[in-house]
């Protein structure tokens, strides 16, 4: 079952429809409900390797649906600590729980200050309304 539309207040958002859940010097990254809904049910997630580095505003992986293949943009820079194997095995988890079990990677932040440039939930909702 696909989730209902939501943008949790505690997350930070990137304009390319990605979110970050920041906890200390680590963060979970994923794609927003809007991104998952636009793509439709995901059939594949091509993850980065654990230990590799991701750079803010650049692609760190790919998600694929029946409609399209799309780059996943990193909202923050860091080193990949863990890839969510549940999403690799069952990509539809992202559609079901985009902010819960549908997270994609856990990273250690290399520049926590970058988070200041991200949007809060209200600003992200405004961005969606303007598109």
């Amino acid at each position, binding site marked *: 079952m696909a989730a209902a539309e939501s943008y949790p207040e505690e997350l930070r958002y990137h304009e390319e429809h990605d979110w970050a859940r920041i906890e200390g010097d680590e963060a979970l990254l994923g794609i927003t409900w809007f991104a998952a809904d*636009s793509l*439709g*049910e995901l*059939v594949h997630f091509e993850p980065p390797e654990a230990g590799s580095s991701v750079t803010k505003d650049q692609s760190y992986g790919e998600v694929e*649906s*029946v*409609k*399209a*293949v799309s780059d996943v943009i990193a909202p923050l820079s860091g080193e990949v600590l863990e890839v969510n194997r549940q999403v690799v095995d069952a990509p*539809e988890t992202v559609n079901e729980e985009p902010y819960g079990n549908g997270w994609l990677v856990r990273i250690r932040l290399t520049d926590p200050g970058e988070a200041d440039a991200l949007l809060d939930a209200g600003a992200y909702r405004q961005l969606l309304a303007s598109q």
Partner: protein
Amino acid sequence: MKLIYEKSQAGRRASAVPRHDELPRPEVPEELRRSELPRLPEVPEFELVRHFTELSTRNFGVDTGFYPLGSCTMKYNPRINERLAALPGFARLHPLQEEDGAQGALELMWRLQEILAEVTGLDAVSLQPAAGSQGELTGLLLVRAYFAARGEAEQRRKVVIPDTAHGTNPASVTMAGYELTPVRTDARGNIDVDDLRGKVDEHTAALMLTNPSTLGLFDENIEEIERIFNGAGALMYYDGANLNAVCGISRPGDMGFDIVHINLHKTFSQPHGGGGPGGGPVAVRGILEPFLPVPAIVRREEGGFGLDFDRPQTIGKVRGFAGPFGVFVRSYAYIRMWGPRLREMSEAAVLNANYVLARLKGAYDLPFDRLCTHEFVLSAKTLKREHGCTALDVAKRLMDYGFHPPTIYFPLIVPEALMVEPTETEAKETLDAFCDAMLAIAREAAEEPELLKEAPHHRPVRRLDEVRAVKRPVVKYGFGEHPVTKGEAKAVVTEAPQGV
């Protein structure tokens, strides 16, 4: 409909051979004999013929109905093409035939090259690439060879591509070993020239542009774009996917492009619905001719035509022999059928598309409100927001009305995209019937959205589970373990409603 395996009955045969009790047994060594018989379907000949004839009636093609699949240029393939391609002198020619026994074929290829050079406004042509995507890769290898010869191979690493491009463009860039520089589209559907200016410099090898774009819009700033790339010493590559819009009207060479690939199977008609055969010739400016694939088809000074392998700077061969020859015959026939009126082909394609657009633009969103070229992109954004009906639902419902759906969800920059390309071959009555169906579907979305969401209702199969088909494809018969298919409509195919 049952699979051929499900119709199988042990012992049935499609043909009977005379009894051979008197003949000696063949001496096949024990280790070469099968221990079990192959598991093949066993049906009599008439059952076999009926099975495949029935399957063929489930097919939908240009020969059975309107097929406005945007970007694919599904124009009608005239039967004369097939008659000419089947002439024994063409069809039975061996690719290794001596030149003097293949003069007619060589002349046809040489003449086709001359025509393509004229249509694109360029100097030299290689017919070898087998499809548009291979034409793209060939073109980029020519770019690389050109800059390598100038000692700029290391310096120029980037290829610029707009965000409306076909997916093959970035794929070709990567395969050719280049780095991708994406550029945005502006509010009128042109390349965002301000974004472009900051991205083109001495590290840029080339631009790859489809013009008119996949939005069906001719780039209004093409002269400014040419100045930017020319000023940076970079080359310009024209993706000829949409050449059907401009033949005899404008020429890529005159717009400043140095390399063009032509999709023969689109612009110049082929029976291309089944994924082939394709043809992707490449036309180039004179400075790039030395690098073209070998063999080149040449007219010899002493008379006659031949294959020239003596091109020391060539990038080599990109395909076996001289290219997909049957495709050349059909496209040559199509072009000669239009003759000096080739321009009318493109004019009719553009007129048809604008007629359909004018009738539909009130009922669907039009992201870029301009005159279109040979195709246009609508959006079902409002239908989705107000009635929950997506572009996919519209496409599925169109099948109930007896039409092949347009391309959907491409280009990616348009949400809920519906990309319609009627081509020049369709009559006004057909276009009107299609428009009537599209308008009826927009009304149904408001009044009875379930009709769309559960469509198609009147086809041999209902809505397919595309996700399951991707994740767990069944591509062979599983005998005892074969999954039972669900959701198939009753075997009776009801008549599709006509346009209202």
